C-alpha cells in the first residue's frame, strides 16, 4: 500500500501525462490538417521532380569526378570552331587612351598604368584626348 504522498505524485504524473498527451495530439492534428490542405489544394511541390533533379545532380558529379572521364578534365586542344588559342591573347590593337599598340592579353595592366590607376603609374599624356573621342 502506498503512502498518500506517493499517491498524489502518481496522480500528478498521470495528470501531467494526460495533458501532455492532449497537447501532443493537438499539435499532430495541426500539422496533419495543414499538410492535408496543401496536398488537397495542389500547393505542394512536385517531390518526384525534386528527387529526379537531385539524382541527376549526384550522377553528374560522379561522372565529372571520375578520373577516367577525359572530356571534363582535358585541356583544350581546339574549340568548336576548330581554332586554337594561346595562353595570352595575342591580338594587337591600339590603346584608346594613349594610342600605342598593345597585345590584348596585356591590355588591362597597360591600361591601368596608362590611366594612372596603378601604384607606380604616372598618367600618360594622352596623344590627344580628342583623338580618342573621335575614334568612338
Amino acid at each position, binding site marked *: 500500500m502506498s503512502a498518500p504522498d506517493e499517491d498524489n505524485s502518481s496522480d500528478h504524473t498521470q495528470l501531467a501525462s494526460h495533458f501532455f498527451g492532449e497537447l501532443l495530439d493537438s499539435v499532430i492534428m495541426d500539422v496533419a490538417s495543414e499538410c492535408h490542405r496543401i496536398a488537397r489544394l495542389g*500547393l505542394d511541390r512536385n517531390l518526384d521532380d525534386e528527387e529526379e533533379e537531385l539524382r541527376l*545532380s549526384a550522377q553528374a558529379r560522379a561522372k565529372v569526378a571520375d578520373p577516367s572521364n577525359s572530356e571534363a578534365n582535358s585541356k*583544350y586542344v581546339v574549340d*568548336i570552331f576548330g581554332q586554337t*588559342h594561346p595562353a595570352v591573347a595575342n591580338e594587337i590593337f591600339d590603346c584608346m587612351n594613349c594610342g600605342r599598340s598593345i597585345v590584348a592579353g*596585356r591590355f588591362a595592366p597597360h*591600361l591601368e598604368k596608362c590611366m594612372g590607376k596603378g601604384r607606380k603609374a604616372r598618367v600618360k599624356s594622352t596623344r590627344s584626348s580628342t583623338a580618342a573621342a573621335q575614334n568612338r
Partner: protein
Amino acid sequence: MSTTLNPCNHLSDYKQRYGLKGFNLIQKWVKTSPCGKTLISRSKSEIPRCSFCCGYEGRLYICLICSSMSCSLSSGSNHALLHTKTQIGHEIAVDIQRSELYCFACDDQVYDPDFDRAVMCEQVLGLGNVNLEGVRSNNKRKRLGFEGGLSSDFKIMKRVVGSGVGGDWDHGRRLSKSCFPVGLRGLNNLGNTCFMNSVLQALLHAPPIRNYFLSGRHDRDTCRKTSSDRFCLSCDIDIICSAVFSGDRAPYSPAQFLYSWWRLSENLACYEQQDAHEFFMSVLDRIHEKEEKTKNTNKDNGDCHCVVHRAFSGLLRSDVTCTTCGFTSTTYDPCVDISLDFNTNVDHISPNKPQKSTDLGISTLTSCLDLFTRPEKLGSDQKLYCQSCQQRQESVKQMSIKKLPLVLCLHVKRFEHSLVRKASRKIDRHLQFPFSLDMTPYVSSSIVRKRFGNRIFAFEGDESEFSTNFEVFAVITHSGMLESGHYMTYLRLNEQWYKCDDAWITEVDDEVVRASQIYLVFYVQKSNSSHKSGEDVGCHLRSSPSGDSFMSIAGCC
C-alpha cells in the same frame, strides 16, 4: 494555384440546401491569434464543451446546420460522428480549433472557397490591420500610396512589357553539328578580365538584352550626338553584340568596354581580379544612369524603362509582423537580382532510402530560395515599432517576390566576409540547381497565402500576366580560391550547353554544367502559351455580412 477542387457530394448538397448561412454564422465566431491561426470561439467566458458528454478534450466540432458542439477523442469515442447518426443530414461540421470543414460522411477534411473567404475576412480584421496607409516608407523606397488590400482587381504595378520578351528561344534553329548558333564567340582575356568576359557572355545572351541591341534600339549615332558623355556602356555593348553575332568566330577583345567601364567606375578600376557580381551590378547601374540622363524620365510613374530594368527589374516585398498583436507592416523594394545565402540545412534524399552516415546531403538552389523567403525572427535587440501596439515589439520578418523580373539573376553568396575574423573565405560547397525553375512558392501571393493558412482566396497579384516558370540560359561559375580564381560562363542555346572560357568555346554535356560550382544563375521567363481565362479568381467578398468593401484593410496582402 493549381486547384480543380471538386467538393464532395455532401458538401455540395449542404450548400445547395443551406447556402452560405452556416458560413456567415461561423464567420462571426472566428478569432485570430497573433501568429495567424484561426479558431472558432462562441463565447468569451465559457470553454466549448461537447453536448453529449460535456467534455472539453480532444477535437471539437460545431455542426454547420444546428450549431451543436460535439467531441472526437483519440480514445475512439466519437460524439461528432454520433451527432451525424442521430441527426440525419448533419454531415458537415467545423473543427473549431483549426477552422476547417469536416465531412463525417466522407470522414475527411474538405475545402470550400466560400468558407475560406468567410474565415479570411474575419482573420484579416482580427489582426488589426485596419489601416489606410498600410505601407511604411522612407526616402529610399518607393512610396506606393494606397494599398489595395484584398481586392484582386487592384494592380499597383502595371508593367509595360518591352519588345522581344523572354521565352523567345531560337525556335526552329535545330542546326547540324557543323553549324553552330550565331552569337557564339569567344572573348579574349585582357589580363585578369575573366570576371568581365563571363558577365558579358551572360548579358549578351539574355533574350531581352540581345533582342534590344540586335534590333538596333540603341542608336550609337544619336547617342553620341545627344549626350555630353564620352563614354557609354550601351554603345560599347552594341558594338560587342554586333561583333559577337557577326558570324566571325575569332575571339573578340572587349577592350573599349573595359576602358569605358573603368572611366565610368573610377573606384573599381584597377588591374586585379574583381567580383563578377559586383561588376554586373556596376554595369547595370551605369547603363541605367546613362538612360536616365538622356531620357529625362518622369520619376512619378516609378517604372524605369531602360533596357536593363525592363529585363532585370523585379520587386521584393518585405513583411514585418509584430509577434504580440499580429499587425503586419509591408514595404516594397525594387531589385535587379536576388542574392541568396547558402542554406546549410540540406535536402536529403527521400526518407524511404536508408541514409549513409557519410551522406551529408546536397544543398540546392531551391532550398536557398526557401531560406530567403522563410519567416525570420528578429533578435530581441532588433525590436521594431508596431503601429498597432504603439511601441517597439519583437517581430518576424519575411521576404517574398512581389513581381518577378523577365530575366531572373540569382546570386549565390559564396564569398563570406567575416567581420569578426576580418577575413573572407569562399564557400566551395556544391549547389544543385534546376534547369527549369518554378518560382510560384516564392512569390508574394503564395507566401502571404501560406501565412493565412493557405485559404482558397484570390490574393492580390494572383492573376499576373507573367509566368512563374523560368528556364536557365546562362550560368557563371567560379573555380579556384578567393583571391585567385577563374570565372567561366555556360550558355544554353538550342538546348545545348556551351562552355565559354574566355577565348575558348566548347560544347559540354548537361552533367558538366550540373556538376559545376555555380555563382550566378540566369533564368528567363517561359512565355505563357495561353492566357488564363474563365477561372474564377475574382473575389468580391460576397459572403461578407456587412457588405463592406474591405478596401481599407491594408498591410496584410
